[in-house]
């Protein structure tokens, strides 16, 4: 009997390991520095994680479908610059849908290359990372983009507003996470994403149009990027051409940390949200401990490596398994 409970605890740890690690981590930091669990601090962390989080939601679909998306960072810069520029030219009410349309076009292009032309997603999106950066610079002429009249616009609502006492970025993140979680776990489309990423051949034999499913994951990803760009632009009302630089790796780290396998076929929206929060709280905890913020780049890298390692170790059943 005693053995049985021991085993079920082990099983629970293996399944919910990421959640447990998160809680342990929170407790340790909270003891080290009580300010860490201050409600203002927590809300601050979640708010600053919202942009990363929104992007990670879309990338979760791409990764479960068996592909990568490294273009989200520079695509987010693009969205931000475009919406700020259009804001002064055609007004916010038109700027927002205009920016979404342009970003979705980029997503559709990537989806076409990866889904219909069957090009390797790593190469395609890595290439798009720099191509979109070039596009952004061309669009802006290399200048920072600013809204002329920052006082008299309702555009700051998405990044700075709050409803029912909750900051709007958190609200957007939560709603989008809830919605996409339903899409992934409850709709036929979500099921097909798992099938395509889990075993593409079996998906084909089941009559699933793989190319279309992959295409749709990139559309979804670009939609999330556009949303993140909107929050970013609205928060700062002005931006450099490089605001999203490096985010693609953090996004990927959050997704993997949440337990989605890079091989495709596994992961959930909920786990990605946990991954995003872990990343946010770790970075925040380190800041509170007095580490310079650029130490975060190194820390993020360490976290990615750890997460990938644990993912592989869980599959092979052992930590140490060198290439023969």
């Amino acid at each position, binding site marked *: 009997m005693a*053995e049985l409970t021991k085993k*079920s605890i082990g*099983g629970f740890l293996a399944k919910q390991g990421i959640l447990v690690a998160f809680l342990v981590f929170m407790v340790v930091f909270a003891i080290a520095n009580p300010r860490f669990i201050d409600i203002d601090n927590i809300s601050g962390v979640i708010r600053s994680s919202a942009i990363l989080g929104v992007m990670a939601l879309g990338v979760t679909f791409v990764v479960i479908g068996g592909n990568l998306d490294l273009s989200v960072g520079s695509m987010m810069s693009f969205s931000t610059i475009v919406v700020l520029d259009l804001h002064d030219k055609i007004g916010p009410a038109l700027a927002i849908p205009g920016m979404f349309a342009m970003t979705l076009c980029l997503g559709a292009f990537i989806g076409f290359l990866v889904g219909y032309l069957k090009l390797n997603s790593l190469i395609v999106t890595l290439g798009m990372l720099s191509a979109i950066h070039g596009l952004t610079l061309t669009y802006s002429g290399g200048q920072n983009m600013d809204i002329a009249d920052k006082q008299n616009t309702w555009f700051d609502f998405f990044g700075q507003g709050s409803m029912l006492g909750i900051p709007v970025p958190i609200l957007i993140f939560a709603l989008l996470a809830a919605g996409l979680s*339903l899409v992934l776990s*409850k*709709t*036929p489309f979500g*099921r*097909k994403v*798992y*099938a395509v990423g*889990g*075993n593409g*051949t*079996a*998906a*084909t*034999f*089941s*009559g*699933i*149009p793989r190319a279309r499913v992959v295409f749709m994951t990139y559309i979804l990803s670009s939609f999330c990027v556009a949303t993140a760009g909107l929050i970013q632009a609205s928060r700062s009302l002005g931006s450099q051409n490089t605001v999203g630089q490096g985010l693609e790796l953090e996004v990927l780290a959050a997704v993997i940390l949440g337990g989605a396998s890079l091989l495709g*076929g*596994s992961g959930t929206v909920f786990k990605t949200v946990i991954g995003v929060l872990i990343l946010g709280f770790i970075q925040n905890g380190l800041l509170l401990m007095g580490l310079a913020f650029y130490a975060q780049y190194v820390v993020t890298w360490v976290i990615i490596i750890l997460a990938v390692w644990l993912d592989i170790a869980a599959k092979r059943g052992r930590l140490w398994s060198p290439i*023969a």
Partner: protein
Amino acid sequence: MSTQTPALRLEGIVKTFPGVRALDGVSFSVMPGEVHALMGENGAGKSTLMKVLGGIYQPDEGQIFIAEDATVMSSPLQAKSKGVVFIHQELSLADELSVAENIYLGELPRKSLGRVDWEKLYAQTDDILKTLNVGFNARTKVGDLSIANQQMVEIARALTVEPRAVIFDEPTASLTDAEKVVLFEVIADLQSRDVGVIYISHRMEEIFKITDRISVLRDGQYRGTLNTKETNEEEVTQLMIGRKLDLSRNEMTHSLGPVALEVRNLSCGKLFENVSFTVREGEVVGFYGLVGAGRTEIAETIFGLREPSGGEILLDGEGVTVHSPADAIARGISLVPEDRKGQGLVLGMNCRDNMTLPQVDDMTAGPFVSDGAEIAIFDQYRDKLDIRTPGWRQMVGNLSGGNQQKIVIGKWLSMHPKVLIVDEPTRGIDVGSKSEIHNLIRELAAQGYAVIVISSEMPEVLHVSDRIVAMYAGKVTREFTAAEVTEDGLIQAISGL
């Protein structure tokens, strides 16, 4: 024999998985120079027992003795170093590597500075391959080999050490008759070298041909051991499933409906040429031939996976072009593919989701997939096919091989197709379930389905078919009705004589 020490002995082995007691105190031993069959229904625990022996799983209780020395098998490599070699049921080869690299994976011969000694590697490998009489060499990429040949690579792996015991887990499931002969020679050779052989199979005729003793497992428990010479199929079956089976030929005839599927002069490059046949509603047509005769390719063409280079496909008398599997499914065609792991299942997905995958679009309530409707389908086919799983949430990859196959069959039966094509439907399925699946096929036909059964097992084809199409090297050589077919006639027709 009883005075000898066993090559290997397992005692009181217990192994549990969440929700499953896979092994419940099993004891088992194999003598040097003996071929010992391990039999039991799908999910009885055969593979699990062997994985414990091969160091892949650690038992919860019980002990392993090698030549009466208690031993702990901590890993497959360690088991191999102790002379216990395991040839798996599910192939586990690296497609991108050469045959030689696969065979010596983890123990490649080295030169100074840890460089791989390729010359030696290839030479050693070719020596082993020569004894197996295969048509490929050490440098061939494994991904380019047929499933049968990949199986031979697995076998070659076993021959790299001086083994004390070799475990074959359903080795013949995808071998041709000629390849089986080679395999049996290999086994006889091992036997003469005093190696203990453990042989798992659902095929009675093999068991009676090559084994000395038969041990039976049922629901994770040891049921007894019989001397092969002193027993018969009935007794073994009785021990395995607790009842008798009907192994007769199909003599049932019922009235046939109109032609559901007609194929006229269908060709696909060199894979098959000028193939013509019809299948009527209510009819089971068996396709018999050797592996590589083009039967699977015909099925894939009808299912929209290959583009024909000539000829016509007619459904209900109307010419159609099937562009994709989705198209085929919409027209009421189902295909149970031959490779369950590669083509039939998403192993990381649960049982229910796998089963309902082709029809997930039609199972919605509002925008969402309806849990209830899905579970209803799963429950229905779990009962109908007797699928052993702790519940629909179980990942398909955790099921026993035979139960995985049943999930694939359930997946396509639940589509209620007009034309059902099954490619090697009972590969890896135990005798009890096999006859259930055969009965099910007959039953479906009686209900008016048009069924094509592709099989390399003659008893199966004879048992289920109303008509048999024999193929050789991409061409239809002859057609038989169930009444006129003889075994000799069939053998001639598929050998191109």
